[in-house]
C-alpha cells in the first residue's frame, strides 16, 4: 500500500464525512464512529430515543456513497424470508426462482431491530456475521461492501424483543446520537424550513472508493504493545466489579480494526493509544452483561469501561 493510496483513502473519508455532516449537524464524533465501523468492515447498532436522527444518519451515509441502499422496518410479524429472500415457483418454466431479499445490498438499514421476533433477528445476524446467507440449502454470498446499520429504541419501551447477548456481540459498535445543543437544533430547523436537505444530497464517493478505503484500513500498522493493550483492556472488563459476562476476543478484534480505521482518519499510518481509548466505550460497552445487583446499584456498562480505561496503564 503506497502513501498515495492512503492519501486517497483519507480523502474519501473526508468527503463522505463532510457530506454527511451537511445533514446531521453537531454529530461529528458519531459520524467518525460510523465511518470507522464501515471502513473496518463492522456493523453498527444505534440505540437512542425516537427522533434523534438515527434513520437520517443511515440514509445520509447511504446517499453519500454511490451504493445500493435498502431499508427494512422491523415489525413483530416480519419473517426471516422477508429479509433473506424466497424461491418462488414459476408456472411458465416450471422452476423455482430465487427472489433476493433486502439483505442483498451494500448498506442495509435495519430500523427498530428490537421490534422483530428473535427468529427474524437471528436471520439477519447470521448474514452479518458470515457475510453470506444460506437459503434452501444454497449458499449465497453478499456483496463485498455489506454494512448494516441497525437502530433500536431503548428496551424499556413496549413491544420490543431485546437482542440476545450473543447477537449484541455481532455489532462492532454501538453508540448513541443523543440530543444536540439548542443552537444546532435551530440550525436543523432552518435547514428543513422549505424541504428536507436529504433529498438534495449527492453521492460523495463511489463504491469502489469505499472498498479501497476498506483495503487501506487493513494496511494501517499496529504495534505489539498496543495489541497487548487492547487485549489487556478487554480482559480487564471480564474481571471488573459487577460484570457477569465480559467482552469476548471478538471485541478485541473489533477494537483493533476500528482503531486502525480511526488512525487512518486521524492521518496516522499506525495506531496510537488515543484511537483505542476513544473507541473502547462504543466497541466494548454493549457486549458486557452486568450483574443484576450491580445494575441496580447504578453501575453501567459504559461506566465499567470508562473506569477500566482510567485504571489500566496506557502505553505512552
Amino acid at each position, binding site marked *: 500500500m503506497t502513501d498515495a493510496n492512503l492519501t486517497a483513502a483519507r480523502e474519501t473519508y473526508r468527503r463522505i464525512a463532510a457530506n454527511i455532516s451537511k445533514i446531521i449537524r453537531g454529530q461529528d464524533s458519531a459520524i467518525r464512529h460510523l465511518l470507522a465501523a464501515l471502513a473496518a468492515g463492522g456493523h453498527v447498532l444505534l440505540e437512542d430515543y425516537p427522533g434523534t436522527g438515527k434513520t437520517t444518519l443511515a440514509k445520509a451515509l447511504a446517499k453519500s456513497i454511490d451504493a445500493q441502499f435498502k431499508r427494512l422496518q422491523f415489525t413483530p410479524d416480519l419473517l426471516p424470508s422477508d429479509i433473506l429472500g424466497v424461491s418462488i415457483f414459476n408456472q411458465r418454466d416450471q422452476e423455482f426462482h430465487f427472489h433476493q431479499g433486502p439483505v442483498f445490498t451494500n448498506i442495509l438499514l435495519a430500523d427498530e431491530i428490537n421490534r422483530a421476533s428473535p427468529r427474524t433477528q437471528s436471520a439477519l445476524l447470521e448474514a452479518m456475521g458470515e457475510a453470506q446467507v444460506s437459503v434452501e440449502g444454497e449458499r449465497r454470498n453478499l456483496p463485498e461492501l455489506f454494512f448494516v446499520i441497525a437502530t433500536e429504541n431503548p428496551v424499556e419501551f413496549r413491544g420490543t424483543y431485546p437482542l440476545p447477548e450473543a447477537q449484541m456481540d455481532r455489532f462492532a459498535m454501538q453508540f448513541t446520537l443523543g440530543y444536540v445543543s439548542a443552537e444546532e437544533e435551530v440550525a436543523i430547523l432552518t435547514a428543513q424550513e422549505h424541504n428536507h436537505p436529504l433529498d438534495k444530497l449527492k453521492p460523495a464517493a463511489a463504491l469502489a472508493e469505499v472498498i479501497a478505503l476498506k483495503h487501506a484500513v487493513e494496511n494501517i*500498522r*499496529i*504495534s*505489539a*504493545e*498496543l495489541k497487548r493493550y487492547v487485549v489487556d483492556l478487554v480482559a480487564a472488563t471480564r474481571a471488573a466489579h459487577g460484570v457477569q459476562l465480559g467482552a469476548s476476543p471478538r471485541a478485541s478484534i473489533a477494537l483493533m480494526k476500528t482503531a486502525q480505521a480511526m488512525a487512518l482518519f486521524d492521518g*496516522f*499510518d*499506525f*495506531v*496510537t*493509544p*488515543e484511537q483505542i*481509548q476513544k473507541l473502547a466505550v462504543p466497541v466494548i460497552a454493549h457486549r458486557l452483561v452486568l450483574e443484576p445487583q450491580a445494575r441496580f446499584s447504578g453501575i453501567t456498562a459504559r461506566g465499567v469501561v470508562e473506569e477500566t*480505561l*482510567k*485504571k*489500566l*496503564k*496506557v*502505553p*505512552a
Partner: protein
Amino acid sequence: MKTPPFLLFAALLFWGWQTDFLIAGATLGAALELARFVKFRWELDDTDFNRISSFCIVLNIALMGYVFTNNDTGGVNGLVHGHTVIAAAKSGALTTTRFLRWLPLTAFAFIAAQMFNARPSVPLTAISPVLRWRRRKGDNEFAGHYYNIEFPYFMVCLFAAGIHENTGSFKYFFGITILAVWALWTVRPRRFKFLAWAAALAAVAVLGIFGIFGITHTQHIIQSFNAAWMARFFGNRVDPLQTMTSMGRIGQMKLSAKIVIRLEPHEVGHVPSYLREASYRNYHPQKMTWYAGGGLSDFEIIQAENDGTTWNLTTAKTNAENINIACYLEGYSRELDAPEGLLPLPSGCSRLENTPPDMILKKNKNGALLAAGRGLMIFDARYAAGATIDSPPDAGTTNHFDLNVPTNEIPALAQVISELNLSAAASETEKRAAVEKFFLNKFTYTMWQGREKHADTNGTPLTKFLLTSRNGHCEYFASASVLLLRELGIPARYAVGYYVHETRGTGYVVRERDGHAWCLAWNRDKKCWEDFDTTPPSWVAIESQRTEFWQWLSDVRSWLGFEFAKFRWRQANFQQYILWALVPVLLVLLYHIIFRRRGKLHGAKDKKSAARENIWPGLDSEFYQLEKKLAARGLPRQPGETLADWLERALAEPALTGLRSPLQELLRLHYRHRFDPHGLPAAERERLRDEAKACLDLLLQARP
C-alpha cells in the same frame, strides 16, 4: 490548604520550647518560613517525593531503634534481661514518647520538600508506603491525588509538643489553644457572626480544661487502685519496705526459670545457701503483707573506700569467704535517673569489693542494701558467719517489733505450742529445734493454693495452714515460723531472697523460681541474726520438676543477654556507640533508596514484569524527560491518560501556549518511535533527540 504566614514558625517554636529543643525549633521554623520570601523552587516529581518519604521512614526507624536501645529502664536491655510486664510496658511507653517527641524533626525533610517545591503539595502515594505498594501492584486508585501537608505537619508539631515533663502546668494547654485559634481563624466559616465563632471556640477551650482535670483525676484513681497487689504480680522487684505474700490466694504459684543471679565462688564449693535481699518486721494479717517498719527515708548512704569500688559494711570482722555475684538492678530511680535495686547478699556479708565505680549504695536498718548505678552489677562479696548489718532486736519490751504477734493469730499459735510439748525450762536452742522438727514432720510443701486456706470467718490463711491443711509454700512456712518463734520469745524477722543450689560450670546460677522466704532468728548468745528455714527441703526438688524441656534455649538467651549486659554496662559512652553504629546502616539504606530503586531489593516477580515491560521499542525516547519536567510543574499524567490527552491538558497553561506546536510535533515523532512497527528512521530519531532538547530548553525559560 496553606497555613497562614508564620503559623508553622510559631508551632515549631512552641514545640522547641516545650521539649527543650528551642534552637532546633526556631531554626526549622525559620527555614520553612523562608519559602515565603525566596523565589527559588525545586521541581520534584512523584519519584523524588517517594524517595524523600522513604528517607524519612528510614530515619524514623533508625531513631526508634536508637531510642529503644538507649532506654535505660527497658528497651533492648529489658528484652534480653526478660523484664516483667510492667517494666516492658513502661519502657515501651518511654520509647514511644521519646520517639514521638522528635517527630517534627524527622518529618522535616518531607515538609521542606513541599514548601520549596513548585507545586505546593505532595502526592498521596508518597505519604503512605502501603499506597505506593498498591500502586506498584497496578492499583491506580490513588494516583494523581495531591495533598498539602502544612496543616498535618502543624498538628504533628502540636502533638509532639505535648510530650513533655512539666505535668500540672497549663503552659501547654494555653499554647495549643492560642495556636489553634490562630490556625482556625484563617479558615473560619464566613457565614457565621464572629461572636458565634468565638463562643464556640471558648466552649471547646472550657471543655478542654475539664478534660485535663478529668484525665488527671482518672490517672490518680487508677494509680492508687490496689497498686501493691498489681506490683506483686507484675513485678519481681523486691520492695525493701514491704512484701505482699500470696498466702490465702487460690491457684498454682508460678515463677519463671529465668536466670536472675550468677555466682562465681573464689574457692570451689564455698557458696552461701541463701542470698537475702530484704527482711521485714511487721506482719499485717488481713493484708497478708510484711512491712519493714520504716520508710525510704530510713535508707542511709554508705560511703565507699577511697578507690570507690570497695565498701565496708561492718567493721572488725574477718571475712573468710569470698564470692563473685552478678545481678541485675531491675528498678529505676527517678531521682538519680539510673537503674536501682536491692543487692542479693549472703548472710553475714561485711564487705563489697570490685564494684562498678559509680555505684551509689544505701542501707536500711533491716539489712537491705539499695544500689543504684548500672543495670548489671558484678562485684565480690566477702562474708562470714556472725555479725550482720541488721539492727539488733529492740531493747525495750514495749513496742517490741521483733516479738510482736498479731492478736488474731495467737489462738492458732498457742495450739501449736501446746502440740510442741515444750517444757517450761526449754532453752532457745531446744525451742528452735522443736519448731524445725514440727514443720519437717507434720507439713508438706506444695505450690498448689487450694481453697482450704482461703481466708474466711473461720480463720486467717495462716491459722488454716497451721491447724488444718498443713501444706503450703515457703511464705507460709516463713511467716508461721517467724510468728511461732516470736510467740516462744525469740526475736525473729521475715527474710526474702534466693536459695542457691544449681551449679553451672564452676559457678552457680539462681533462677527466678529459686526465690524464697525464710526466717531470721536472733541468737542471744552470739548476738547475731541467723538464717532459720523451716520449709521442707523437698521444695527445691518440687520446684525443679517444673523444668521445661526448652529451658536450655531460654538459658542460652539468658546467657546472651548477660554477655550483652556486661558489654553494655562496661561501655560508659554506650549511647554514642549505638548512634555511630546506626550511621553506616542508615547510609547503606539511603544509597538503596536513591540509586537502587529497581535493584536487588526487589523480588524475582518484579524482575519478570520489568523484563516484560522493557521489550517494547522506543522506551529510550527523550520525550519522557519532557513529561517528567511537566509533571514536576504540577501537571502529572494519570496512568490511564494518553500522552496526547495529557499534553492537551498541560498546554492549557498560559505559560506554555508558545510550546504548543513544537510539543505536538515532538509527540508525533515520539509516537512514531514508539508505536509504528516500522520504527523511526535514523534521521528522524536524531530529530526527536534534538527537538526534545530544544523543547526542554524552552520549557525551562517558560517558568510559571
